[in-house]
């Protein structure tokens, strides 16, 4: 029989752990009572997460959770001032005598479009120096509308790219490169559901429609134990619940797409709904031209759409039910019709997610959320050809489908401790290839590769406030992955701490260990739909990383909401995956080529090192708001089977990255905005020359290209720096039916020709042959105009 023994060292650790976790349960002498409740937006009933609930006398407080719930347990029979504040809302102060458990629900009024300068007492602000959490970015979704945008499409991911430590990949891409990690290492969750492919149109646009979102949070490091499953970042997005009091909506018309959002009560105060959609109409606009050029015989085009829906019902103040869903799809299509034949073909990809959540408040201190989650990403190609005596039908698809169950418990025993526990289990079903082929004269082909795995995690965390000056978030996540007979079990310790040097200045540190059990196979990193999610197997190990970060957070004592954060990080990742040299998973023009390719044989594992420093100076209040972000970073990779085993710089290793963002609202009629970004050029693999190869002496005719590129090093060539200035101006006017806004934007205002990629070309000139390096740039200066009406 197997036995387990505890070594003296383990015993000490166990005791220490028990002490920390049992602290909240320690004997309390004075009678204690709780203040708890929900914070909502006045007028809509929308529950507000992240609201600061502050007790100035005690210099302590709480923050509302994702569902707007807060709880504070304090010594009884005393009088307290409680302040509720949230950026963009009028703060509220309450004075109360705590002689029993009190349930206090608060409604905060949104300050209209920066109309008056919001006067907030310094104490009431959300102070970054007081939070134990570091490396996190919260993006008020109302702000996303203020920034300049590409073709008028307000994009959450592109706004996040303006934060230090977060980089965009290639020009126009909405992928996030967080602290040296790739877009495959980001956990993107929308209402608890993982979104696998966050981009439309090869990454030019992200799938998130800001109209439907309530909050966006990005974690770059110091990950709380409640998150896991990816190495580099967590992007947590929550959809709006829908107005519980009256019907409101928004209509937007842009050059590329139109969108709408409608929310309102089904049963006033109890049940509400939200529907939000967007569709591009490039195909509709181009259709007459295509028809004309093909004598009416052909049509084709491209479109994408998004649809967000949500219904929620409040059974009582203690029980709430939410059902939400996201559906989005990109589609290319072509049709040709002739007298005796026709031809249809399509290429599509998209995500679908669904979440059913039930919030239950057991008592003043205990809050639970249970979720059932569905997520699917699929990619398909179809072709259909009918001739007089020939039929051909092809359907190829790949994708991933997840079913998850999640349970989270929030426990607020006293103001010094906020505990969270939870369990998440996901059944992944991978379909790397499914093929259905029908062709005249050939036996029908129905083939499908499918395999399943189960990913499970349990976590416990305690956000502690000790000795008035020290905030510690300590926790552990245990993750487990099962694929066929292969089991992986990994403990992931997490720690974040902040020590207040004075009222407005704190020093912070964090450590996070992360594991990633599913991998994205991508050739390009530009969000091609052929990107494929695959499981860890006995051959392909999970990717893992350890990140340490230290930093300073300073809130300035002013009315401007000015704050400064400086952070340094070091992240070491192991078993990260890459394609082997020359490998490619799926050739776009021949889906059947995937037939003989085993992806496990095509990838190789290696390690990466990322380190850097980030500076973030932000002004949150006043007529002029914005920030300056600067990142100094370095990312190196090493794979035994790549680059002859030598270390090399990552493609998006960027030494300097600067973003300047400014929004100016001189009156409630005008919003002016500008962003300037600068980044060291990306690395490309460019041959330094060409050379003659050895020709085989075969007895029959055989021909190869006689020359080969001389590649001295992967990513040997540093492209010229990337920089760009965007500008936007919005005119708002109050109309009878609501507020209308004209939004005029200019992308890349000084028409910088930023490099997109390079290639070599050889051509014959009178003196001989010339090989030249060509730079391709896209997205020159692009103006746009859009219209929206909010009612």
């Amino acid at each position, binding site marked *: 029989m197997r036995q387990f023994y505890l070594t003296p060292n383990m015993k000490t650790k166990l005791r220490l752990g028990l002490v920390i976790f049992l602290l909240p349960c320690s004997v309390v002498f004075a009678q204690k009572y709780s203040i708890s409740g929900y914070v909502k937006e006045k007028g809509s009933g929308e529950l507000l997460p992240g609201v600061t609930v502050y007790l100035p006398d005690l210099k302590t407080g709480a923050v509302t959770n994702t569902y707007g719930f807060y709880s504070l347990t304090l010594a009884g029979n005393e009088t307290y001032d409680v302040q509720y504040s949230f950026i963009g809302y009028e703060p509220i102060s309450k004075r109360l005598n705590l002689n029993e458990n009190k349930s206090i629900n608060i409604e905060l009024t949104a300050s209209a479009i920066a109309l008056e300068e919001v006067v907030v007492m310094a104490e009431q602000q959300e102070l970054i120096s007081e939070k134990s959490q570091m490396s996190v970015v919260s993006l008020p979704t109302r702000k996303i509308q203020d920034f300049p945008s590409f073709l008028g499409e307000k994009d959450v991911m592109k706004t996040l790219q303006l934060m230090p430590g977060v980089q965009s990949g290639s020009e126009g891409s909405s992928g996030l490169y967080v602290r040296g990690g790739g877009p495959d290492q980001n956990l993107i969750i929308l209402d608890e559901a993982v979104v696998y492919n966050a981009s439309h149109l090869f990454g030019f646009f992200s799938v998130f429609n800001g109209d439907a979102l309530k909050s966006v949070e990005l974690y770059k490091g110091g990950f709380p134990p409640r998150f896991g499953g990816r190495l580099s970042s967590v992007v947590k997005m929550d959809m709006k619940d829908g107005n519980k009091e009256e019907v409101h909506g928004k209509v937007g018309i842009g050059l590329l797409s139109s969108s709408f959002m409608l929310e309102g009560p089904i049963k006033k105060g109890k049940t509400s709904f939200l529907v939000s959609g967007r569709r591009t109409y490039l195909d509709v606009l181009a259709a007459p031209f295509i028809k004309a050029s093909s004598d009416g015989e052909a049509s084709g085009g491209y479109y994408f759409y998004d649809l967000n829906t949500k219904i929620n019902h409040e059974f009582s103040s203690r029980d709430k039910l939410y059902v939400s869903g996201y559906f989005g799809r990109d589609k*290319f299509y072509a049709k040709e019709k002739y007298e005796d034949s026709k031809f249809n073909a399509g290429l599509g990809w998209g995500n679908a997610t669904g979440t059913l959540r039930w919030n239950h408040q057991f008592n003043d201190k205990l809050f639970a959320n249970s979720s059932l989650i569905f997520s699917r990403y699929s990619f398909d190609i179809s072709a259909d050809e009918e001739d007089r005596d020939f039929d051909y039908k092809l359907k190829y698809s790949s994708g991933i489908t997840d079913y998850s169950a999640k349970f989270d418990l929030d426990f607020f025993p006293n103001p010094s401790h906020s505990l969270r526990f939870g369990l998440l289990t996901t059944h992944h079903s991978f379909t790397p290839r499914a093929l259905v082929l029908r062709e005249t004269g050939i036996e029908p082909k129905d083939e499908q590769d499918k395999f399943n795995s189960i990913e499970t995690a349990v976590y416990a965390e305690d956000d502690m406030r000790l000795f008035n000056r020290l905030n510690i978030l300590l926790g552990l996540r245990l993750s487990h992955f099962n694929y066929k007979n292969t089991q992986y079990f990994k403990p992931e310790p997490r720690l974040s701490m902040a020590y207040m040097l004075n009222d407005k200045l704190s020093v912070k540190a964090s450590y996070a260990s992360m594991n990633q059990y599913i991998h994205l196979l991508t050739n390009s990193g530009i969000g091609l739909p052929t990107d494929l999610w695959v499981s860890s197997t006995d051959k392909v190990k999970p990717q893992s990383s350890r990140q340490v970060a230290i930093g300073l957070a300073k809130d300035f004592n002013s009315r401007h909401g000015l704050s400064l954060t400086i952070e340094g990080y070091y992240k070491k990742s192991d078993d990260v995956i890459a394609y082997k040299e020359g490998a490619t998973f799926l050739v776009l023009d021949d889906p059947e080529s995937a037939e003989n390719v085993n992806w496990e044989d095509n990838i190789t594992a290696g390690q990466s090192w990322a380190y850097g420093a980030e500076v973030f100076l932000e002004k949150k209040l006043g007529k002029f708001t914005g920030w300056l972000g600067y990142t100094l970073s370095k990312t190196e990779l090493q794979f035994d089977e790549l680059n002859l085993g030598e270390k090399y710089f990552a493609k998006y290793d960027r030494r300097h990255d600067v973003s300047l963002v400014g929004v100016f609202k001189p009156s409630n009629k005008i919003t002016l905005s500008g962003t300037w970004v600068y980044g060291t050029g990306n690395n490309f693999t460019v041959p330094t020359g060409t050379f003659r190869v050895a020709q085989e002496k075969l007895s029959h005719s055989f021909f190869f290209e006689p020359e080969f590129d001389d*590649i001295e090093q992967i990513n040997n060539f540093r492209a010229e720096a990337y920089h760009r200035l965007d500008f936007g101006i919005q005119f708002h006017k109050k109309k009878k039916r609501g507020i209308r806004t004209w939004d005029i934007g200019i992308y890349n205002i000084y028409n910088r020709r930023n490099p997109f990629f390079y290639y070599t070309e050889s051509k014959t000139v009178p003196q001989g042959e010339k090989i030249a390096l060509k730079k391709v740039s896209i997205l020159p200066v692009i103006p746009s105009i859009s219209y929206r009406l909010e009612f």
Partner: protein
Amino acid sequence: MICLPKIIFNNALLLVLSVFVASCVEEVNPKGLVNTDRKVVINSLISPQDSIISVEVSLSRPVLGITNFGADLITDAEVIISDGTVSNVIPFDDVTARYNLETDVFPIQAGKQYFLEVKTGGNTYKASCQVPETPATDIRTTISETRDGFRLRVFWRDQKGEENYYRVSGGYKDDVDRDRNFYLGLDFAEEGFKTDNGRDGEVISADTDILLNYFVNGQKVLIDSLEIQLLTTDKNYYEYQKVLVDIDQNENPFAEPVRLISTIEGEDALGIFAAYQSVIKKMKVE
């Protein structure tokens, strides 16, 4: 089969990109493009079954700049082959623009190690290789009917106890050109590269699709005869040629870049010196 997805993909992509992405291409001469010096490239593949030892010495061409045709060949190098005891100078041959030596003069033998030395531009470059011990034996072929047509399969027995690398290739003649003195190549693609890894001493096979008849100017043409050439190569030969075939097969612009191995020692040198044994089997197609 028509590559339908390619058509649709290209057309639709072009349409989208042209509408809102005006791409611009310009020639650049970046300073950052390191080391544009020309490198010495030495290539030679030797075999006991070959009548000559042939060595090509050339210069690589820098990515930026102009070169004259043919100017990249080095004709005045001193090229020496040796088996460790006997050595021979390989003279330059103007006709083939290579350094050639007949194997009657300097025989290449199974299992033996050979050394190549090239002196040019004041530098000396060295390389060595070992000829595989045993050629493949028991070569058989089958042709079977499949859903889509016919499949040619080549079988052979691996030599037990040796680490072996194989290169399979072949050609065909049809009944119209049966007197032609060469065979047209059959495309084995990646299937043309096999190792005995995990199947030492066993029968190994490689296959390729084959057309047994086709139409030329409305006239039906039948395949008349086949030729299979099976090379037993050293590891470097295998890895080098496999990369070339893979690259040739794969035109995906998003495929990862490849660094081709070099077995030449010496500063700024590229190229390969490798060895193989060759067996050819000819057969009539009934």
